[in-house]
């Protein structure tokens, strides 16, 4: 029994124990118990993931656990990498839940919600270690169902929660159907349900079948990853669920969509054709741009983070798409670099998004609002949360010395050198991709400056923001842990490179160490070097030195009311809010965003020339949703209305329908 088996067993056992004890235990210590067990389960998964990413192989076949096919599990470096991310995020969210779910009654502290949390974590861990199509599908569906129920935790508070649940259920089941069809088709074409059989038989699958299987997988996996246009569930589900669930979904669950695409495209189907990856890169680019534009104008702090998840997943998919295209163009080194950048960005995104969602959760818990227009002034009441959130924002904005910068640097490096004989498509696609990454980074900076500047700084703009208190220690500890992960990834990303090399060589791209030569201190690609540690040290030490030197020159700082060009005493209503901060950008992207604005002017009773009050209301709708989903939903609804006469209430007719359906299935099944 090796270390992967032992720690995976421990992770699963602890998660199941968490679920059982959540059902059995009393309410006063339920959150602490479940949180601790979930965190320990996550820690065990981290050990398993690190060992698997380090090259320890393990596999297990339990023939009788599922009827007909049994359960097959295995780990390789790729699954180990994602297991590591999931475990780390689970550990953070488990600790966070101790404080976050400590309020009893309906909500995150309820018995159902706490019992589902470890089960959700366990299902997340099951997906990357699944080694056969049925096991993967069971894990996938378990993950969908548990996360759906967790999204609905606060269903009594707002109708928006139920709405989010319906959107999530519909889109996730659509994705599941696509996966079910695609993977079973692949299994039947390749002659076996286990991944080893499919790998062996992949060469016999004809290219049309393989392409269609990949497209079906794209719908299922990219939908789960929150890529445009399958994203409408994401801002709703991330915003309305409890914050530790948002963190788990955003930092861990959406990554499994990326995992699925890598497993299907590179591993099971062996690379495929160039157009697959061009579509994937286009989907990634669209998600990145659309996600960050929506995030830049969002008022709701969690909706903003959710759209930023779409953006980051888009960047990851862009990297994966280019890896595939480079591999097809016969440039395995560049392919491995692009894939390494995508995988490292996945890890970075997990770290900073876990930090940001837990930080946002602290704000929501302390103030009861997610509206950044009504926040502000939290830096004095919640200094720890503010500093940690600002650190996460620095990383998410891809600024040095944050960890997001490291992976975006690698991604840009992989796009900057398409190679001399890359072909027309890559020669044109690579500069466009650079422009997309750069535009995303630029707008991302605006987004996170807005989040920190209007959400946390200046004066509180509502009573609830003014009455905020710092979160309980367990929540702060969880945020600190996520922050430390960000720091580690920012300072010594080179430590991850051996695992990345192992994954890329497993996926038949390039041998270890050929692409990113990394010592502990430097990342060296083809013709450029990044010194992450020196960047961090330089910025921190330089700032401290300048501050100390400037202070030594003169007298102490004074405090006085703000000057503001001699204006009168300032009120918080004069401050820039999140909406006003993003207004210039919104005006530039007016054609893309199409905001809906209402201005109601109430005139004084005496004269039309005197204005008594002006009400301004603005909504920025999701246009993709309006254009694609609204007509679709309307069509389905009218179809349902028209099909009503079919349900006449007669049992005989229903039995007749069942007979016809059975016959149809049999005919379809026998025909080929």
């Amino acid at each position, binding site marked *: 029994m090796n270390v992967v088996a032992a720690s995976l067993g421990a992770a699963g056992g602890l998660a199941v124990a968490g679920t059982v004890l959540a059902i059995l235990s009393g309410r006063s210590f339920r959150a602490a118990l479940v949180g601790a067990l979930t965190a320990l389960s996550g820690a065990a998964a981290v050990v398993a993931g690190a060992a698997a990413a380090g090259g320890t192989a393990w596999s297990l076949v339990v023939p009788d656990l599922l009827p007909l096919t049994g359960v097959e599990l295995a780990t390789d470096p790729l699954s180990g990498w994602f297991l590591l991310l999931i475990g780390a995020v689970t550990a953070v969210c488990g600790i966070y839940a101790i404080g976050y779910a400590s309020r009893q009654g309906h909500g995150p502290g309820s018995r159902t919600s706490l019992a589902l949390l470890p089960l959700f974590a366990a299902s997340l861990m099951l997906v990357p270690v699944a080694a056969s199509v049925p096991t993967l599908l069971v894990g996938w569906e378990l993950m969908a169902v548990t996360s759906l129920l967790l999204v609905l935790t606060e269903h009594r508070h707002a109708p928006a929660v139920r709405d989010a649940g319906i959107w999530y259920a519909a889109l996730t089941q659509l994705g599941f159907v696509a996966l079910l069809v695609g993977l079973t088709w692949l299994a039947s074409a390749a002659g076996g349900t286990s991944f080893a059989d499919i790998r062996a038989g992949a060469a016999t699958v004809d290219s049309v079948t393989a392409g269609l299987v990949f497209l079906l997988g794209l719908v299922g996996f990219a939908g789960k990853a929150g890529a445009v246009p399958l994203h409408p569930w994401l801002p709703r589900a991330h915003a309305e669920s409890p914050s530790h669930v948002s963190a788990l979904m955003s930092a861990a669950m959406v990554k499994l969509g990326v995992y699925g695409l890598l497993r299907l495209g590179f591993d099971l189907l062996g690379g495929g054709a160039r157009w697959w990856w061009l579509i994937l890169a286009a989907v990634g680019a669209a998600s990145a741009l659309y996600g960050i534009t929506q995030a830049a104008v969002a008022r709701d702090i969690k909706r903003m983070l959710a759209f930023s998840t779409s953006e980051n997943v888009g960047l990851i998919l862009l990297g994966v798409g280019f890896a595939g295209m480079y591999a097809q163009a016969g440039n395995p080194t560049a392919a491995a670099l692009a894939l390494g950048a995508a995988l490292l960005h996945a890890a970075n995104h997990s770290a900073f998004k876990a930090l940001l969602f837990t930080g946002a959760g602290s704000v929501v818990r302390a103030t009861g609002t997610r509206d950044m227009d009504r926040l502000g002034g939290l830096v004095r009441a919640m200094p720890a949360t503010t500093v940690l959130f600002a650190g996460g924002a620095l990383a998410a904005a891809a600024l040095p010395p944050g960890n997001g910068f490291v992976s975006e640097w690698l991604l840009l490096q992989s796009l900057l050198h398409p190679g001399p004989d890359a072909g027309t498509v890559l020669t044109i696609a690579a500069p466009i991709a650079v422009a997309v990454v750069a535009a995303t980074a630029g707008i991302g900076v605006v987004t996170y*400056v807005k989040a920190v500047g209007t959400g946390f700084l200046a004066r509180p703009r509502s009573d609830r923001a003014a009455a905020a208190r710092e979160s309980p220690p367990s929540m702060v500890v969880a945020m600190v842990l996520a922050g430390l992960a960000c720091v580690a990834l920012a300072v010594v990303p080179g430590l991850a490179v051996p695992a990345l090399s192992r994954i890329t060589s497993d996926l038949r791209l390039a041998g270890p160490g050929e692409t990113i030569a990394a010592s502990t201190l430097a990342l060296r690609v083809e013709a450029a*070097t990044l010194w992450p540690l020196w960047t961090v040290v330089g910025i921190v030490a330089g700032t401290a030195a300048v501050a100390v030197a400037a202070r030594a020159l003169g007298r102490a700082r004074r405090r*006085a009311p703000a000057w503001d060009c001699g204006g009168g005493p300032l009120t918080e209503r004069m401050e820039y809010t999140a909406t006003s901060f993003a207004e210039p950008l919104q005006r530039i992207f007016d054609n893309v965003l199409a905001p809906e604005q209402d201005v109601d002017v109430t005139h004084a009773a005496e004269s039309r020339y005197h204005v008594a009050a002006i009400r301004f209301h603005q909504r920025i709708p999701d246009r993709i949703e309006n254009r694609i989903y609204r007509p679709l939903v309307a069509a389905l609804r009218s179809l349902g209305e028209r099909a009503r006469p079919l349900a006449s209430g007669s049992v005989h007719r229903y039995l007749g329908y069942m007979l016809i359906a059975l016959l149809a299935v049999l005919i379809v099944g026998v025909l080929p």
Partner: protein
Amino acid sequence: MTVLVALGQAVLLAVLAPYVLGITRAVRARLEGRAGRRLGQPWRDLRKLLRKPPTSPSDASLFFVAAPPVLMATSLLVAIAAPFVATTSLAGEADLIIVVGLLLLGTVALALAGLDTGTAFGGMGASREMMIAALVEPTLLLSVFALSVRVGSTDLATIVTAGATDPASVFTPASALAAAALAIVTLAECGRVPVDNPSTHLELTMVHEAMVLEYSGRDLALVEWASALRLTILLGLLANLFAPWGVATELTPAALAVGTAAFVAKVGGLAAVLAAGEVFAAKLRLFRVPELLAGSFALALLAVLAAAVLG
């Protein structure tokens, strides 16, 4: 030795920066028919401000206090690492992407400080500055792409050395287009006409100045000094990327002396050209600025395509 050269280069830029500002003001005054102030006046202003204690607005937090040192530190780091006088820079490799990132970090620190004051003007300046920064970023990185195609690296020293040793390689259509794009971007990054007017007195049209309205004393000195340093850095990069003549490619005293003299002359000349251009241009309306930046983006995209197609 490389460490000493790098530090010396940073000191040179820090000392030179206020004079660069002085040159732009003097040239502008002459062209407008005024006598103007002496070249060293910005230095005297800095010395005066550095002695005065700073004042923090009562609503401001740590972000307001930290922004000037962060701005100064990031500018100094770029001044240390990038090849201005000599191409043998500190780590051996200063990446163009990280230079862009460091400058953006300084902008972000100042924007957060503007929001931190809780004043309407601070927020306004921060919002506008970030909008411009967001639109500048794609152009910057695309120009980087165009320049890196030529030498196969984003390393600044490699690009500059290639230009210094093979001057003919600088005169390509791709270089010319990238130079035009970068020049527009430099104007936007430094808050010069036509994007922003550094000497405006009307708060409602301010961008950069509105963000720093609440700074005083040595905080203000740091902000002003760092802004001058950023102008010098960007002019120096522009000069060395597209006219890399005289840059020391080896560490001999003679080469370093030539490099220093060439650098001072190039930056001084560019500053004079910049000021002369400003006299004949008017500031654009804020919402016309995106059109200008879109134009520079198009130039950068053409530069990349030219670099890819023409080699």
